[in-house]
């Protein structure tokens, strides 16, 4: 085995005669051994020889395009140095292949020059600006299309895809209950733990219950639901619709004269609007439950007292302030993720950018809307 390896290794034997030098390449001149081939070629190129050079290929065991290319390159370099080079004992397939290679000789000047780093940045800024503009225009068009689609459905309610809505209610709602419960519960727990730690310094640890219940019901419960749904369901919607676009399913719908807005988009957005308040409610309950567990452990209050204090702390107004945000969040997530899904074009890369954008934009908009609504509700005194 070792012996065979040694034989395979490409090398060149140099035989000097009086006015000429004969190079005898040995071994395998293939892609696998190309590092050795290049080294060998570089070595023979370094020395000086008489005017007349011969490459005797009788001992060449195997070659492929890579090997021939390097041999050709070496010969070319010799010729450029004014040597006279001749090939000896070249097999037919060698000559064929090297003739082929001559046809395909690469010319590097023709390879387009890549942009410099600075140019590249500049071009990227331009592209990003143009994209932003296009996206804004597209979003306005999309909102218009949704409005038209919804209006069509409203005019003729039988065209509302009930089966699709229920299917999505299950996928977006029921299947998300578990993860939302767990995370809302954990958040309530943490909130109670940290709040109690701080309030104890004033001897006001009993107000932990107020802290937990108000923050969960007004803000945390609904916000965490919005963020989770944006990440979980929003990305799924974008990927699903994006795949339908790549698969030309959306085009197919259009050729049937069916409106993709009506069939794909409106049911999803409606399902999200319906399901978000329910998810928010579940999230509220689980948050209070998590907080309750912590409170029961560290404050030594009875469950009955805990529930009683919650009733004192939160008004019906606070509860509704939280829940009323949910359909807005659902609409935001639905519109953004469907919009980004429809922006997918042709190839898989745009799927990546659109899904990322969908999640980032939904979370951003949900948080923004939450802040604005909070300020609004506080101002009007609820």
């Amino acid at each position: 085995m070792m012996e065979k390896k040694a034989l395979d290794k490409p090398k060149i034997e140099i035989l000097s005669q009086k006015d000429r030098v004969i190079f005898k390449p040995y071994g395998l001149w293939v892609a696998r051994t190309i590092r050795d081939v290049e080294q060998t070629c570089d070595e023979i190129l370094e020395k000086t020889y008489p005017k007349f050079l011969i490459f005797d290929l009788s001992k060449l065991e195997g070659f492929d395009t890579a090997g021939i290319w390097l041999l050709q390159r070496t010969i070319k370099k010799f010729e450029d140095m004014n040597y006279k080079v001749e090939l000896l004992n070249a097999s037919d397939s060698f000559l064929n292949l090297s003739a082929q290679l001559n046809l395909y000789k690469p010319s590097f000047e023709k390879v387009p020059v890549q942009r410099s780093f600075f140019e590249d940045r500049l071009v990227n800024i331009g592209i990003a600006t143009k994209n932003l503009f296009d996206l804004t225009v597209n979003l306005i068009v999309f909102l218009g299309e949704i409005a038209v689609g919804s209006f069509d459905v409203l005019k003729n309610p039988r065209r509302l895809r009930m089966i699709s809505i229920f299917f999505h209610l299950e996928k977006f709602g029921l299947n998300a209950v578990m993860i939302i419960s767990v995370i809302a519960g954990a958040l309530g727990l943490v909130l109670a733990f940290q709040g109690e730690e701080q309030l104890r310094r004033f001897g006001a640890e009993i107000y932990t219950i107020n802290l937990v219940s108000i923050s969960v019901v007004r803000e945390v419960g609904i916000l965490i639901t919005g963020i989770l749904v944006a990440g979980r369901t929003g990305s799924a919607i974008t990927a699903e619709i994006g795949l339908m676009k790549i698969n030309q399913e959306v085009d197919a719908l259009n050729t049937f004269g069916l409106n993709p807005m009506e069939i794909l988009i409106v049911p999803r957005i409606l399902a999200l609007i319906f399901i978000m308040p329910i998810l928010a409610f579940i999230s509220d309950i689980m948050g209070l439950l998590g907080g309750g567990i912590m409170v029961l452990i560290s404050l030594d209050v009875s469950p009955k007292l805990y529930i009683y204090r919650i009733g004192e702390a939160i008004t019906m107004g606070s509860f509704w302030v939280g829940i009323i945000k949910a359909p807005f969040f659902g609409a935001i997530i639905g519109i953004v993720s469907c919009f980004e899904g429809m922006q997918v074009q042709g190839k898989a890369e745009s799927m990546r950018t659109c899904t990322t954008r969908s999640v980032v934009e939904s979370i951003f908009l949900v948080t923004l809307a939450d802040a604005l609504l909070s300020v609004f509700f506080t101002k009007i005194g609820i």
Partner: protein
Amino acid sequence: MSNNTPVISIRGLSTHFGDHIIHNRLDLDIFKGEIFGIVGGSGAGKSVLLRAILGLTTIKHGTITILGKDAGSLQKIMKNQLQKHWGVLFQGGALFSSLTVGENIQVPMRDMENMPKDVAREMSLIKLKMVGLNEEDFHKYPSELSGGMVKRVALARALAVDPEILFLDEPTAGLDPISAAAFDELILTLRANLNLTVVMVTHDLDSIKRLCDRLAVLVDKQAVVGTLKELIQDDHPWLHEYFHGPRGLVALSELKE
């Protein structure tokens, strides 16, 4: 053309898809230097057979031997370093979408064979021109290419390190007749000069007539093997329909006398 040691030898291959049996004790030998076609109806298991040879599908029974070495699963293939001996052209091209054309062709050169950077660059340009594209396409991304160009780049990538066996999955599907004919000629030239063994899954009767030395037709979960002339004489109903149907008649008219 063929000598007696098969390059690929399949014995008693059975594969299944859930409860659905696709191949049942299938035997097949592919010899050095031949262009071997795999044909069959939709769902007859052409692509599954190719995937089984490449180790991409788990096989239920049977052995696959490639270049005298055990294959049939990715582990065995990696152990025997078989992936260095073949190039694969996937149906959709399967170019890496995040790499440029040039980088795609250099993947096998740089990552498999550890070729120096400048040689890899030169070789990738040569391969690119070999498949009929030119230098301007070097820095393009796959998303900027047309379907035919994707196929050509994928072929260049499959040929990157001069494999001994070239697997083609529907190479001419989706190409216009002129490009398809050029593709056929390209395969013939490459075979003649690079001593290639070509295994191709195809539906294109013109390609089969022009290229294939022997064929395997997948019917009844088995492979019927022979030259095109022999198979035309075969009286299996599916084969008869395939070669003597309206499309077969046109493509193969001069072979039938």
